[in-house]
């Protein structure tokens, strides 16, 4: 799994590519923690290129959500593909984290 990050002034966009499961979620978590530790409090998760997303990935998302909100920021999702959206919905996270149809809309939400 790869994690692609684009850092802007007010927000950072993180795009995991591939499977985010118990074997690969650590990479995802490492990158999100790096961004939070470096001062980014607003994060967009682009889930358009997720092949698989399990609770391991959701745990990372929830933990990051708590961190950003604790620091006065927030996290949202952009372009969740069908599988990612389904998993978010099953977990009930779609009612807790804003889901946007495009990156632009997600970035503009901050």
């Amino acid at each position, binding site marked *: 799994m790869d994690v692609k990050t684009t850092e802007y002034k007010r927000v950072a966009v993180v795009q995991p590519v591939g499977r985010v*499961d118990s074997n690969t979620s650590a990479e995802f978590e490492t990158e999100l923690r790096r961004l939070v530790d470096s001062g980014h409090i607003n994060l967009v998760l682009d889930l358009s290129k997720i092949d698989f997303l399990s609770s391991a990935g959701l*745990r990372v998302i929830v933990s990051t959500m708590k961190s950003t909100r604790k620091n006065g920021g927030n996290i949202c999702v952009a372009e969740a593909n069908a599988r990612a959206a389904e998993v978010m919905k099953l977990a009930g996270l779609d009612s807790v984290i804003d889901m946007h149809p495009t990156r632009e809309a997600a970035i503009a939400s901050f």
Partner: protein
Amino acid sequence: MPATTQRLRVPARLTQLARVREFVHGCALREGLPERETFACELAADEAFVNIVVHAYSGESEGPVFVRCRGLANGLVISFVDEGMTWDPSPPSEPPWESAQAEVTVGGLGRLIIHRAMDGVRFRRRGSRNILTLCKFRPGFSPAE
């Protein structure tokens, strides 16, 4: 149509996770389940296997995990049998994001997903074995039938 059964045995190691998912995915596809139901089975299988590794075997081990997929007229039945400690497959009482703890515990979200993704979840302890049975109905099937 007679029921078809596929079996897989793997050690309780996370390196086997993809293999378990692919096995269940393949069984669901062969049974003609649509994409959404097939994905639900694959997702639940992932979560179940991780829970078995973490909670039944308290971490990775050579302990066996037997996975069986049985296609029926009304859907797919997936069972996981392990020889580890008993564990609780119940979903958490509150969503993990409502917890004051910063970190989310392993298993809680996974168990929640298993129960929501599948149409039936049953857990039994038989002797020294845990038996977790999941079922996914074909679209349009009504359990009352």
